[in-house]
């Protein structure tokens, strides 16, 4: 408060401009107004010029009939739906491939990352080779490889690789039996839910009892029994209300069953393998960041190697791993937009591709698409920050 003028100093007050706090505020206001004004001018000018050139503007096109078909849709969609619906279809496909990619990349990354530190020479070198190969080849090439060289070079539907007439793998994708839930399956579903909740409480109770009394409890076996037993009883009692829709060869390809299209397969594989290599390095560095003394101390206490890893090393390593892991997840979600290169109908291919081209409204479509990726990244980021805060060192 030394700079603020006192009450008695009214006679010779220094210029406000010499007050750094005032000056900082002033410059921030000027900068904000300039940026806002520039954006306003940009938007206004774009609209004005597009109108001048007879280019349609606005979002009314979202209600028009799309008239084209999309290869894979998680919601009901056909040619008679609107452009707005194509957005939803594309978005869900993007979320699907990002979700699957993140899931598998995490598994691959943690496995390879731990293997990289293995004392077994072969395992160690294999992990290193994996990391160096897949981290250093551009992702687009890997996608092309898994798609054009692997997925669509599988045998045709008539010569499909089959597993006992139930599952078929061909260049049209993987066809597996699809469960058909009949009336009364709800009770089984309810039983599963109940079993899960029960097991969670059981595990908590068992841990508390162990901490209080030191008596162990066979949580794993009891939990498994409940998880499988309860739904099984409900399932049998309600009269097995589940049948399978088995894929059948007919006409050009298989019909029925659940189809995993080769585009989804190739893209998920490429994203998981590529990002997995980066995650593996993150995991390795995280584990190595834990001081060696920690491991030695655990050994001195007589903990087994696997326990040391699980109880001492990993929890501490996670604090180092999570922030870069977040970046990898964000990259994966954004990289999924390379889907268009192999015809996977993601948001960029469907909405920023076909819809943009059929309507010609580039500015609107690209703006929406950019907003979606921004939102998606922010959501992942917020979630990972929350998880990071939870895992952070709690000082007592």
């Amino acid at each position, binding site marked *: 408060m030394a700079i603020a003028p006192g009450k008695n100093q009214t006679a010779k007050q220094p210029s406000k401009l010499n007050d750094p706090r005032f000056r900082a505020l002033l410059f921030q206001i000027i900068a904000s107004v300039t940026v806002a004004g520039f954006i306003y*001018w*940009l938007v206004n*000018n*774009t609209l*004005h*010029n*597009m109108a*001048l*050139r*007879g*280019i*349609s503007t606005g979002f009314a096109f979202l209600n028009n009939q799309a*008239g*084209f*078909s*999309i*290869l894979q849709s998680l919601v009901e969609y056909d*040619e008679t739906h609107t452009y707005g619906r194509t957005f939803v279809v594309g978005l869900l496909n993007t979320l699907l491939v990002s979700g699957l990619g993140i899931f598998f990349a995490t598994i691959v990354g943690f496995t390879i990352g731990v293997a990289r530190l293995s004392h077994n020479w072969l395992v160690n070198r294999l992990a290193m080779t994996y990391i160096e190969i897949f981290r250093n080849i551009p992702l687009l090439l890997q996608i092309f490889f898994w798609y*054009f060289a692997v997925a*669509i*070079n599988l045998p*045709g539907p008539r010569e499909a690789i089959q597993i006992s007439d139930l599952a078929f793998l061909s*260049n*049209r994708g993987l066809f597996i039996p699809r469960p058909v839930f009949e009336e009364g399956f709800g009770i089984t579903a309810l039983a599963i839910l109940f079993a899960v909740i029960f097991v969670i409480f059981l595990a908590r109770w068992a841990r508390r009892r162990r901490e209080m009394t030191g008596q162990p409890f066979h949580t794993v076996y009891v939990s498994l029994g409940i998880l499988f037993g309860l739904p099984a009883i409900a399932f049998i009692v309600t009269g097995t209300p589940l049948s399978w829709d088995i894929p059948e060869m*007919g*006409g*050009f*390809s298989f*019909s029925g069953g659940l189809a995993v299209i*080769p*585009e989804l397969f190739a893209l998920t594989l490429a994203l998981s393998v590529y990002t997995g290599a980066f995650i593996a390095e993150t995991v390795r560095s995280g584990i190595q960041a834990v001081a060696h003394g920690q491991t030695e101390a655990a050994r001195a206490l007589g903990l087994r190697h696997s326990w040391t890893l699980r109880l001492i090393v990993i929890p501490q390593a996670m604090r180092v791993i999570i922030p870069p892991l977040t970046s990898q997840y964000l990259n994966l979600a954004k990289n999924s*937009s*390379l889907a*268009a*290169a*192999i*015809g996977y*109908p993601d948001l*960029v*291919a469907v909405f*920023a*591709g*076909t819809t*943009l*081209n*059929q*309507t*010609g409204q*580039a*500015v609107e479509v*690209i703006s929406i698409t950019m907003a979606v990726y921004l939102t998606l990244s922010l959501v992942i980021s917020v979630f990972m920050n929350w998880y990071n805060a939870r895992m952070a060192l709690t000082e007592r």
Partner: protein
Amino acid sequence: MKVKMKIAAIAAVAACSMAAGTAQAGKTFDSVKSKGFVQCGVSTGLPGFSVADDKGQWKGIDVDVCRAVAAAMFGDASKVKFSPLNAKERFTALQSGEIDVLSRNTTWTYSRDTSLGLNFAGVTYYDGQGFMVSKKLKINTAKKLSGAAICIQAGTTTELNVADYFRSNKMTYKAITYDTSDETVKAFEAGRCDVLTSDASQLYALRIKLSAPDNAIVLPEIISKEPLGPVVRQGDDEWFNVVRWALFAQINAEEAGLTSGNVDGMKTNKDPNIRRILGLEGVKGEMIGLKDDWAYQIIKQVGNYGEMFDRNVGKGSALGIARGQNALWSAGGLQYAPPIR
């Protein structure tokens, strides 16, 4: 490809916002005149229409349309620069001013003509959509295609026509859409799809790209009207006139029997129609803002419509497509140009 498209889209925004209120008629004409060449948007490689040979020289009917425009503008058909574009990038590239004319097997439709801020200057090729299937499927009509997987290039009218055709015939299909026609061919060859669909002319062009062209056949059904032609920006009438009349001059030349071979000798011909086309009497070049011999230069350097057709897609080419609908009106086709007078 994706990146390029986004850049094009951003460029569109940037160009629209920066050039505040400068979209008056005559802008393109003047800018082409002053920069000394025509920037022409073509495909990324479609034999017969626009394809770069091993020396990097662009060839094809769409390429010749641009060369004709350059011949009319500068008296030199080589003053063209080509921008290869995929189907998704093409309109944005034209709207943003990245190219002066889009000559890229583009179908003239109501919505493209009215809502994109573009104008179609004419029809260089009357096309229609067809289907190509593998011979071993033993299918000879498109009516038996229910349940088939179909490879399509994204961002084309093709996507919509297929949907209409299958819907109206109560058939189902799976559409696999790729960015470029090369990818559709690769996927078709690998057997990812049973059918490749595109404009019939393109099917013939893509067929010769297959490793074994004889194993594929084009089905007889033509399911749509696809008039292909050059496109310019709307509200740029002087430039529109040049592009439109460059094509009309070629059609008129074929009708009058003028070819690149005989055009010099025809200068002494007494036929007033021929003399008008060659700019020797009657109409003046200044009406369109060009020299009097603008049409002569087109015929001399690029040839008449028939020559252009035969050389690129017709008898004289690997595609060997018959004139059919693209014959002159006087020979039972649809090619008809208003007279030069």
